[in-house]
Each structure stands twice: as structure tokens, then as C-alpha cells.
């Protein structure tokens, strides 16, 4: 594994996060002895790959192009290996309602939810639809775009009259809303990496935002805004159950190389699947690098090994 290309930037709401992820991965790879450079997924990418293809590509793109399979589909066409899930698996993981349905069918607990496109509200009347929704799902609720990252567009709804505002905010970031029962408990992020082809769950990170209950954009990317506990402050058997959920997500959805599952453990110790990310953040405040460090893994070596595995496929 000599030369790597790190894809970062992209044209999504999370471009800024992606640029930071890309820089950190690039620095880490270089310190692990890999010749690495960062490139944006723009019109210059394919010609650059044609001219001088790297051994493998690390995808640090966040948001649709990096996570819904589109860029990976193009890399497959170009015959360039990359670390991470294949396009079909990405599509399924990127759409949260689909991921939840598949995991529920596999016996994993995930909060009750309703998925509604903006059109439904427009055509059938927001008041009527919201009224039915509130009868179906008890408060409090978590409203978020059906696909998207960094909690953009997400909000917690504790009062029924705050629901319209939450929907408006959600639809600023996406055309379909996922409205979920809010499960109270301990928020965990469990990263999974494949080593020698075998998926392993890294130590779970417990996430405690300091300013408000939601682990929102500010809480994620402002250093000091959130307390993180790794290992998480939960009993061993609960942590094992949480790891099993993350491994199940990785397996059931057909993911590859690396993923990060976000879940919440309730008072009974039951882990509830929320979502899984195929292009986890790699910034200075991100969760996978934190888990890797807790497991004694060097981030650069980890990324290099994932790229080497991809190149050998």
C-alpha cells in the first residue's frame, strides 16, 4: 500500500466536516508511511485517476455523494479500489427508514417511527397528518431527515405545538422526514472495522452533550461542547449487547471495511439502533478515531490496512 488518494469535500451540507476528515486521514496515512493526497470529488477527479491511479482511495466524503453509493459507483466504473461499503449497501444504509426496517426484521430493536415526505403534508394537510402522527407516536419525538448526517435538520420535540417548527426545520435539509419515538437513555457510538476481513467492534463511546439533549452539529464539531466517555460507563454485558447491534448492522446491511452505528441504551439496558454511517467522521472531534485510540490502534495504520485490504480485492 504505497499511494493513497483521500476524497474529501464534495457538494453536500457536510462539506466543511468532510474537508477536516480528509485532512486528518491524509496526515494519519502519511505518518503511517503512505504517500497520500486529498482531492475533491469534482470534474478533475476522473482525469486524475486515469492519469495516475492510486493503489486505493479513502472516502472521507460525508453526505449524499460519499454515503449513498454514487461516488463509489463511479470508482467501480473506473476500476479504482476504495475502502468502505459497496454502492448497493450504501444506498440501503443511507436511507435510515430502510436500514431500520432491515434491522428490525433481523430482530434488532429500533424505535417506532413514521416516514413522511414533504409532499404528504402539502397534499393531505399538515394539521391532519401531524394530528394522526401524534396519535400514533407518543411524545417526546426525534425528527430528522430520512437521510443525512451530522444531525443537520434534527430536533427533539417535547410539545405537540413544537412539531410544525421541527418539520419545517427538517425539510430545510431533506425532502423526507423520519419521525421517531425518542428513547431516553445513554447515547453510544460503536465503530466497526474489519481486520483481516473479520468485523470487530471497537470500544463504544458514550456521548454526553453539555448544552441540551441533542447531539447536534455544534455539539459534534465544537471541541469541549460534549463529554465523551470511552469506554462507556455501562456494565460489560450491556456494552457487549451494544457491540452486537453494531456488528449486526454491519452484517445485515452488507457493509464493508468500516462503519459507525449510533444507538441509545435505555434504562433496562436494551440497545436501540438509530442509524449507521458508512463514511464516519474523521475530524479532531469525531467518534471513530476516539474509539480506535481507546483500542490502542493508530489511525494511520488502521486506514492503511483498510486500504491495503481494498487494493487486494
Amino acid at each position, binding site marked *: 500500500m504505497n499511494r493513497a488518494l483521500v476524497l474529501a469535500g464534495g*457538494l453536500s*451540507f457536510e*462539506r466543511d466536516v468532510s474537508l477536516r476528515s480528509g485532512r486528518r486521514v491524509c496526515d494519519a496515512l502519511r505518518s503511517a508511511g503512505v504517500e497520500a493526497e486529498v482531492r475533491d470529488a469534482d470534474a478533475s477527479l476522473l482525469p486524475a485517476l486515469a492519469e495516475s491511479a492510486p493503489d486505493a482511495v479513502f472516502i472521507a466524503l460525508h453526505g449524499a455523494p460519499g454515503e449513498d453509493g454514487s461516488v463509489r459507483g463511479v470508482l467501480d466504473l473506473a476500476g479504482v479500489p476504495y475502502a468502505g461499503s459497496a454502492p448497493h449497501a450504501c444506498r440501503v444504509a443511507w436511507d435510515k427508514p430502510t436500514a431500520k426496517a432491515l434491522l428490525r426484521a433481523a430482530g434488532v430493536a429500533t424505535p417506532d417511527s413514521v416516514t413522511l415526505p414533504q409532499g404528504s403534508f402539502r397534499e393531505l394537510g399538515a394539521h391532519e397528518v401531524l394530528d394522526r402522527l401524534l396519535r400514533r407516536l407518543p411524545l417526546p419525538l426525534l425528527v430528522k431527515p430520512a437521510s443525512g448526517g451530522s444531525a443537520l435538520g434534527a430536533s427533539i420535540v417535547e410539545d405537540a405545538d413544537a412539531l410544525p*417548527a421541527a418539520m419545517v426545520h427538517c425539510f430545510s435539509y431533506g425532502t423526507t422526514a423520519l419521525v421517531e419515538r425518542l428513547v431516553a437513555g445513554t447515547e453510544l457510538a460503536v465503530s466497526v472495522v474489519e481486520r483481516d476481513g473479520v468485523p470487530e467492534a471497537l470500544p463504544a463511546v458514550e456521548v454526553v452533550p453539555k448544552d441540551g439533549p441533542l447531539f447536534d452539529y455544534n455539539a459534534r464539531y465544537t471541541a469541549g461542547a460534549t*463529554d*465523551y466517555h470511552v469506554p462507556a460507563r455501562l456494565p460489560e454485558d450491556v456494552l457487549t449487547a451494544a457491540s452486537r447491534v453494531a456488528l449486526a448492522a454491519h452484517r445485515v446491511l452488507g457493509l464493508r471495511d468500516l462503519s459507525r452505528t449510533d444507538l441509545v441504551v435505555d434504562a433496562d439496558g436494551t440497545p436501540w439502533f438509530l442509524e449507521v454511517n458508512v463514511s464516519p467522521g474523521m475530524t479532531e472531534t469525531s467518534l471513530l478515531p476516539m474509539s480506535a485510540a481507546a483500542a490502542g490502534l493508530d489511525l494511520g495504520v488502521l486506514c492503511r490496512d483498510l486500504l491495503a485490504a481494498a487494493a487486494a480485492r
Partner: protein
Amino acid sequence: MVNLDPYGDRYAARTRGMTASEIRALFAVASRPEVVSLAGGMPYTAALPLDAVAAAVADLVATRGPVALQYGSGQGDPELRELICTVMALEGIAASPDDVVVTVGSQQGLDLVTRIFVDPGDVVVAEAPSYVGALGTFAAYQAEVVHVPMDDHGLVPEALSETLGRVGPRAKFLYTVPNFHNPAGVSLSRERRDVVLDICRRHDILVLEDNPYGLLGFDGEPEPALRARTGDGVLYLGSFSKTFAPGLRVGWVLAPHSVREKLVLAAEAAVLCPPSFTQMVVADYLRTQPWQDQVKVFRELYRERRDAILDALAQHFPAGSVWTRPGGGFYTWVTLPPGLDSKEMLPRAVTARVAYVPGTAFYADGSGASSLRLSYCYPEPDRIREGVRRLAGVIKEEQELRDTFGPVRPHAARGTDSPAPDLA
């Protein structure tokens, strides 16, 4: 526990509020060619006579290299300060080079003036809306900003009088951008200039006049500056960023001698001295190049873009939107149809591949969501038209969303909403 900011409990009180917001992060997409950015404030530096500038820089290094690359005076290059006086004379200001302090951009001038006058808790009076760079400076010195309304002719004198009466001795200065205001696009009318000065004199409050765009009016001669009418009680900030180039980082403060003494000490404590190299580049440019012809070139260029944006707004924007008609400078201030929120709308605009700055960036008190700033200085006229077309579509979609759900409370989001300066 993992603490990602081990210095968290050591920061000075003045850093409170220094967080970027998710809105600021959205501006990252504006650097992609697919996005039409009407959000930036970058002058069109490609229009400069670059061959002439290159030759001048080469000559500077070849003939005066050791001096150009050496520390200089904390107050700034004496020859440049003389030339600055000839530049200010174009707007009616009579001044001595001794009272000019060269700064690293007029932004630094703003910082130094605030540093020497403002204690935490002091009041600064500013227009509504006000320049985002100034709001950042005032926040850094823990000032309380009180906004005074403007209309199409600038600051409203009655409102200014009422506000000054109310805030009284806690107000250290009035910060005003009288020409082609950023972000409002309006100018303080001739009639109101003396009225405003009079009100400030009666209330014994300093005036800080910030004038980067005065020479970039599209019609007629520049209106004499506030500082042209009186040397007492008016501090003046000037800049070469728009008339020459922002990358040189050369601006200045014109202040009465006692204030100037303190400014020089403050400047030395901040940077030792402003950059000798770029000051000498500016001085050579003013001395040897037809720089006023270049300003005319800029004016025509920006006029064409102003016309493009105003035409496009009239053509595409829905009923209920209003906007200012700038006679110069870079910006128009658009007020959306009622019930819309420019900050909440920005993600949709990004999806539609157009960027603007939400009005909230230009207020210290959280207002401004009903408006937004559009800049026309950088993109080509056709791109400007395309951007306005896209934005009109976004507004219509936003109206549909609001019609669907009815009026809602805005989503609370913390942090700075404005983009970085190198946003196109």
C-alpha cells in the same frame, strides 16, 4: 472521560460566543463551481493591471529590497501616509500625514480603535444592519451593540437621537458606514450628514466613520465624508482593499493627534508595524500608476453587475420581496416576503446551488432573519442572473413549506453566521 478541549476552563471571558455555527459551515460549498455564490465580498482583482503591478513589485525588490523587507515605523510608511492624504482629499478630507496611522487593513483599524475606547459592557451604537466584521470586533471587546434603524437614505436621524438619548453616557461611539453600506447598499444622504454629526455632537458621542467604498459610486462624484465636515469627534477608517487590492492588507485610521498617539502604541503592541513591503507597493502604485483610471474600471465593472442583479431581482423575485438599489459598492439588501426566515432557508439554497448571507449575520441582537445580503462584486453578470433565478425558486419553495405548516417559531441555533473573508 475524553475532553477534546483541555483548555476549556482557561479561555478569557471575551472568547465566549466565539463558535462557528452550522450555517457558517454551509458556506464551504460556495467554493465549488456548481454553486453561484452571491455571498462573498471579494473584489474583482482579476481586473487589476497585473503586468504593471508585477513590474512595480519587481522594481521595488530590486532597488529597495532591504528596506521593503525590513521592519518599518509603527505608524506606517511616511510617504504612504502623505499619499493617503491626497486620496482622502478626493472625498473632501483635509488632514495631516501625522494624524494617519497605517493599519493591516481597515479591519485592524477598527480593532485598534475599539481596543483603545471600549471597556467590557460599554455600548457601541451601530446601524441596523451593520457590517459583520465590525460586529465581530465589538463582540471580541465585550461591547453591547445597540442598533439604529436606516432607510433608503441611511441612518434615520430621529431614531439616532432617540437611541442616544436612551443609552446616554455608556455609548462610546457611533459606528457608521455612510457610503454604499455593507450590507444595506444605501448611503447617508447629503442632507442627513450634517444632521447626524450635529446629533452626535449634542450627545457628546464620537463618530467612527468607516469608508471603504466611497470612491466606488457609479454616478457622480463622491459625497464629502463626515470627516470632511469636521475634524472634531470623528475618527475615519480608510482602505485600499476595494480601490486597489485586499490581499495587500493596507488600510488606515485618521484620528486627532491624542488618539493617534494611543493608536500607534496599540498598533505596535499588536503587530510592531504594518507590512513595509505591501505599504511600499501601494505607495508606488499611487505614485506611478493611473490608479484613479483603475478605480473607474472597477466602477464600470461593478455597475454592470449591479444592473444585472437589480434586473434579475425585478424579473424573478416573488411579490412581497423588496430590495435596496445601491448607487455603488458591492451589495444589495433584500427583504423577503413576510413569514420567511433567511437563515432557515440557507440549506435549501445550498441544495439549489446558490449562496447568500442570511440577514442574521449583520445584527448583534438576533434579528435580521427576514432579510438577506446579496453581493454582486465577484460573479460574471450571467452568473449573477442565474443565481438570482435559482434563489427565486428557493423562495417559492420556502413559501410553499411555510404555507403547508403555517407560521412557526424559528429554530434556535448558536454561533457566528457569517462566512470567512475568502468566500467568493
